[in-house]
């Protein structure tokens, strides 16, 4: 009996009028946890009742504490008939179960009803007294912290990163139970909400147990999803990365952290996996594995392996043995693990050694063939199969680990596509194993050798490449081989050198499919999948070239299945990595060169393409030659960066010639136009409109090339649904519609947020679903962050100077503040050099900080403002405390759709309500922001004829407390430089 939950109901406000006669309400509250229920007194005739109840005490097992939500129901007392429910509040008490998080939940919660939405608010106080549990066979996992953030949380240090944890639970969907025919929609919705809440509690507890088994204390990059399988059940599944985290109490704590990654690390899989560049091999693009059948159910697995832009030859002389050694060590560290997967997308510096490329696998399953739908075994087997495949793909790329790993499903009727993708990588075992000061130094030495380009070097053997690739020597170190293009699912490593700015690149694709049943359907889908993957890939590659860039980060390919079509949407952030070769242009070739006018047409197109490339290079400030030669391109065997700098200058002339040579050799990317389809493709390439000036967009955490963020942020969700007219159902028309939909949506966003210019849309996350035959739904969640234009301009004007400065500052930092630097730079240093520039320029306090201070202070001063962001940080602020995970699921239904303003009015209100409830929960935990916020699901169904609509939304994120940098400075003005430096870095960190 290890826990006592105490709840107090204080008051209500803005309650709805429940008694028409008096225009008032006689409200009381039921507090339920598990099977115990308490009631408050009835507060007569008031819309703002003051219950001030006693403390209701529940004595419960900690297992229940983890699984069950606290359920608070507000009712209107009625003497003669049944009491009417006003609404409910579900409170997840999990954050109270770990010591460092919140100690009390207290605040105003919106009272939510699935039919009427929010109806007033209730003030509740919740506390938990936990007793120590000595039972070692316990089923609970209290104390394991969960983070949605896909990097090591800001105020923690990773002692060990244990690796992949996953869990899956299944239940019957209440919506499909027989009883649903006789109960009210409200009862059915509430049953569903409660069930999912229970299931996610259970899931979290089970994952926690696995983490404890691994001797970890936290799960980072926790991603929980639910699959509405319909008849066959409701699945809640989650993946994450188990870690042992240490709280950093003060900056000083950084020191031991960095110096002693500790002996324990031997166990840790904290090895740097090199990710493979996906190679967009035009000729031999895809490896399709044969469909495999699971024993009792039909399934087609469509494992596609795409290697894009792979390239690093393990060429260097010492590279060979080193690599072998590395591999050995890594292997030993990772071998014990079934799946050496990491859901993280950003890592401590030095963690990532090489990146191989994107690996992905898909599999088509039939849900109605599950023998025991109520048991998780079948689904477990499905996922295991896919993960196995991912693992073998990674192996093929010479990697032992997969980072930036994620899983998703798309369900239509009884067909389900399971997808998994990640980035094959080689991780650094030394970093883990020699956790001493010595190790740290060595580490740094090594970093100096390969910093900024190391991760681009190919992890596989040059002579034994898994696919044809075009390799060149790294443009940075000149020692190792790199691919010509690199695709990854992770964020841009903080130490990577990028030229110019990045941009959002999307590939969009629709394919019609015949309506079919069961196996025929599944087969049709799995036959289409490889072609879609291929085309999506080609599109990405073309667009990347068109932008004059050579690497993609944060790649996410989503394939959605509908009744009569398949949709593919790939989003990624393109950048120009200094270490990779300059991309060749796009060459158009016609198949029938005899026709004169045709020829002319071709050359016209070619010209347009070349113009676009030139324009894009200007737009994104990609001007590699000077920069790469002068600053980055030095061979530098020495660890001292300062000397490197000098040397690079002296040697630059040599390199230029070398560079030119390679340019000359490079094959241009050839597009053949032999039919109208190809023509279409070229056209669509050119139709993508760049964002208006002052706007940038990316789908990674931070926009490469922008670093002077100011503190204004605006998170938003935008949803669009279009109806296709059934007449124009050809692939091309479909593609065009889909393309227009996405482009218009982006345009709309740019227009709406124009007041924030100059700003950047970060973490742009598109989700496509096909709710009905002719409906396409696109949901976008992103955050707009403003940045300082002046600074940006300066940067553009003097790129060389800046980078010089950058390098030198970097150096000085290293020399002058070894201790402080250690703390930050080694652990969470997304843009260390750049930030340093700011600090350096401004005298003691720093320009950047001044700017931050001048930013709207109201956000901070007003009570109750809660910021939400899909990023793991808040610009201009430092996260001081993580309060726990927010994981909420809501259903809203209406039977008066027209009266609520149609579908748009209904969904608009619902999303606003969801935001409100998330904010209220965070505020009640004592937080002032949600980071790593994600809307994982937004399932919208309508029936306008019946005037009905229903929507399900699942959101999650980490509740945090943040402090503005400007406030921090006041506190510690003694060491302005160090301080502001650390705070800056902290604030901007991506890790």
């Amino acid at each position, binding site marked *: 009996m290890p826990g006592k939950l105490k709840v107090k109901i204080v008051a209500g406000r803005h309650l709805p009028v429940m008694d028409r006669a008096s225009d008032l309400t006689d409200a009381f509250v039921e507090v339920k946890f598990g099977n115990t229920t308490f009631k408050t007194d009835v507060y007569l005739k008031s819309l703002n009742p003051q219950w001030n109840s006693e403390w209701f005490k529940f004595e419960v097992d900690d297992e229940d504490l983890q699984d069950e939500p606290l359920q608070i129901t507000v009712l209107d007392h009625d003497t003669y008939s049944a009491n009417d429910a006003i609404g409910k509040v579900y409170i997840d008490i999990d954050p109270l179960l770990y010591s460092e998080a919140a100690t009390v939940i207290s605040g105003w919660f*919106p009272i939510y009803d699935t039919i009427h939405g929010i109806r007033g608010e209730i003030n509740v106080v919740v506390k938990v007294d936990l007793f120590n549990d000595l039972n070692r066979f316990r089923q609970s996992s209290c104390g394991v912290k969960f983070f949605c953030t896909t990097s090591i949380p800001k105020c923690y240090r990773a002692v060990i990163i244990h690796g992949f944890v996953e869990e899956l639970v299944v239940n019957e969907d209440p919506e499909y139970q027989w009883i649903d025919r006789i109960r009210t929609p409200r009862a059915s919705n509430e049953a569903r909400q409660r069930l999912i809440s229970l299931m996610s509690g259970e899931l979290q507890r089970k994952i926690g147990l696995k983490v404890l088994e691994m001797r970890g204390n936290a799960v980072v990059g926790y991603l929980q999803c639910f699959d509405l399988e319909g008849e066959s059940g409701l699945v809640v599944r989650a993946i994450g990365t188990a870690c042992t985290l240490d709280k950093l109490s003060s900056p000083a704590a950084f020191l031991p952290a960095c110096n002693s990654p500790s002996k324990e690390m031997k166990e840790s899989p904290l090895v740097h996996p090199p990710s493979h560049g996906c190679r967009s091999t035009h000729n031999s693009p895809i490896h399709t594995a044969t469909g495999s059948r699971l024993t009792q159910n039909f399934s087609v697995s469509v494992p596609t392996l795409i290697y894009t832009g792979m390239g690093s030859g393990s060429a260097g002389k010492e590279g060979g043995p080193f690599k072998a050694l590395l591999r050995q060590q890594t292997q030993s560290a990772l071998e014990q693990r079934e799946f050496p997967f990491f859901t993280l997308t950003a890592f401590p510096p030095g963690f990532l050694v090489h990146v191989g490329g994107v690996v992905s696998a898909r599999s088509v399953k039939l849900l109605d063939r599950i023998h025991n739908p109520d048991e998780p075994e079948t689904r477990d087997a499905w996922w295991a199969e896919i993960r196995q495949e991912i693992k073998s793909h990674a192996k093929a790329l010479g990697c032992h680990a997969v980072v930036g790993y994620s899983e998703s499903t798309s369900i239509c009727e009884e067909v389900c596509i399971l997808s998994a993708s990640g980035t094959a990588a080689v991780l650094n075992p030394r970093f883990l194993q020699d956790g001493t000061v010595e190790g740290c130094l060595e580490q740094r030495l090594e970093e100096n050798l390969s910093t900024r380009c190391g991760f681009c070097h190919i992890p596989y053997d040059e002579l034994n490449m898994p696919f044809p690739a075009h390799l060149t020597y790294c443009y940075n170190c000149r020692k190792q081989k790199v691919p010509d293009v690199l695709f990854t699912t992770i964020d841009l490593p903080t130490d990577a050198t990028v030229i110019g700015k990045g941009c959002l690149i999307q590939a969009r694709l629709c394919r019609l499919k015949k309506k079919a049943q069961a196996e025929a359907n599944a087969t049709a889908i799995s036959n289409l999948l490889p072609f879609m993957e291929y085309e999506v890939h080609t599109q990405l590659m073309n667009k990347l070239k068109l932008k004059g860039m050579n690497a993609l980060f944060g790649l996410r390919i989503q394939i959605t299945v509908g009744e009569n079509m398949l949709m593919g949407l790939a989003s990624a952030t393109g950048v120009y990595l200094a270490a990779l070769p300059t991309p060749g242009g796009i060459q158009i070739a016609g198949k029938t060169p005899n026709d004169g006018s045709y020829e002319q047409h071709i050359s016209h197109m070619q010209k347009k393409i070349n113009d676009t490339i030139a324009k894009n290079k200007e737009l994104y400030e990609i001007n590699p030659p000077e920069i790469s030669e002068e600053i980055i391109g030095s061979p530098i065997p020495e660890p001292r960066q300062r000397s490197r700098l000098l040397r690079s200058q002296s040697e630059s002339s040599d390199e230029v010639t070398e560079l030119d040579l390679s340019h000359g050799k490079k094959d241009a990317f050839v597009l053949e136009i032999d039919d109208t389809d190809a023509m279409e493709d070229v056209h669509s390439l050119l139709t993508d409109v760049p964002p208006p000036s002052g706007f940038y967009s990316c789908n990674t955490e931070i926009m490469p090339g922008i670093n002077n963020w100011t503190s204004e942020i605006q998170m938003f*969700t935008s949803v669009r*649904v279009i*109806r296709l007219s059934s007449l124009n159902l050809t692939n091309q028309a479909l593609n065009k519609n889909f393309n227009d939909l996405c482009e218009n949506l982006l345009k709309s966003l740019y227009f709406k947020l124009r007041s924030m210019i100059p700003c950047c849309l970060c973490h742009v996350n598109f989700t496509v679903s096909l709710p009905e035959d002719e409906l396409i739904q696109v949901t976008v969640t992103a955050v707009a962050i403003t940045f300082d234009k002046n600074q940006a301009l300066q940067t553009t004007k003097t790129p060389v100077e800046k980078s010089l400065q950058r390098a030198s500052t970097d150096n000085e930092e290293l020399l002058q503040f070894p201790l402080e630097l250690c703390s930050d730079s080694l652990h969470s240093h997304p843009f260390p050099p750049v930030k340093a520039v700011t600090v350096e320029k401004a005298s003691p306090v720093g320009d950047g900080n001044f700017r931050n201070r001048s930013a709207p202070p109201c956000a901070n001063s007003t009570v109750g403002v809660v910021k939400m962001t899909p990023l793991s940080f808040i610009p201009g602020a430092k996260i001081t405390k993580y309060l726990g995970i927010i994981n909420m699921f809501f259903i809203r239904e209406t039977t008066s759709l027209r009266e609520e303003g149609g579908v748009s009015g209904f969904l608009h209100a619902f999303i606003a309500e969801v*935001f409100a409830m998330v904010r209220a929960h965070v505020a009640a935990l004592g937080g002032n922001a949600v980071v790593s916020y994600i809307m994982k699901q937004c399932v*919208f169904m309508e029936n306008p004829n019946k005037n009905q609509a229903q929507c399900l939304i699942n959101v999650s994120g980490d509740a945090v407390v943040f402090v503005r940098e400007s406030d921090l400075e006041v506190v510690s003005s003694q060491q302005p430089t160090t301080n502001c430096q650390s705070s800056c870095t902290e604030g901007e960190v991506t890790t």
Partner: protein
Amino acid sequence: MTSELDIFVGNTTLIDEDVYRLWLDGYSVTDAVALRVRSGILEQTGATAAVLQSDTMDHYRTFHMLERLLHAPPKLLHQLIFQIPPSRQALLIERYYAFDEAFVREVLGKKLSKGTKKDLDDISTKTGITLKSCRRQFDNFKRVFKVVEEMRGSLVDNIQQHFLLSDRLARDYAAIVFFANNRFETGKKKLQYLSFGDFAFCAELMIQNWTLGAVDSQMDDMDMDLDKEFLQDLKELKVLVADKDLLDLHKSLVCTALRGKLGVFSEMEANFKNLSRGLVNVAAKLTHNKDVRDLFVDLVEKFVEPCRSDHWPLSDVRFFLNQYSASVHSLDGFRLECGGTIWAHCNLHLPGSSNSPASAFQVAGTTSVHHHAQQFFLYFQ
């Protein structure tokens, strides 16, 4: 391809001031889009009409959802659904409760009833303000009226407290409520030259000096109703014109004081008796509701118009009125014979005003011949 659903929801609710104004002005989405296109926004931002349409719809939807909260502004501050910075909240409220000068002149002093609401389409046609906007403004008046009607304490404070309006707007609303409650006639042709500002000024002074609230601000009172007893007492002023000696004496006092100071002295001297009679009669009649309603009409007829026909400059009118009321004190007979009761009454009811010289019923009308805009104010101390 038709758009079924198109929404944008920000964590901080986006408010576009221009669109808000269009919405308040009662334009439909289509009209608003057309107006925005005309404003050249497309060229500035490089957006398309479709984008503009979607943006406008979105804002309209947000405003529609906010409207319910704007009906009770304190709710807007405490609600959790829309995260809006305080400055924006204030702007939303202030703009929502702002009204058109042209509209308010039409409704000022009318009963805020369903009947009046039915006439709004006429007002809409007459003023060129959309019916939607008229309805909003009318409903705002009515809502504020209903809330503060039965409330004690200062009218302006009450309005500010319950509607979170700026000081200026709250004063205007106090005037509107005051006029609506007393049903002062303001719509006659003769009064057309007076602006809402003029009436608001009068209302403020009347609230300060003529209402129950002015008499005793502590006790159960309201700023909305005129003090009946006070109006009753005004009857006794009749002596100023009824008693021939008193009238002459008064006249001579005023004339002596003003000789040489007025540009229109001779006209004044000639007209003194008429003017005085007019003023006093207006004051004496105020015991009847009907006459209270016609207060402004009567004043214009009996005082302002004669002055205007004689081309009194504004400053002269002010001089005259000041002197007119000041001289009353020096009237021995007035003070001794019958004035005593009045002043006793007045002083009784005006404990706080003992330090200021009690003046009689004072009507100050100011005429500006040049501008043809006249303003008059009346107050009683």
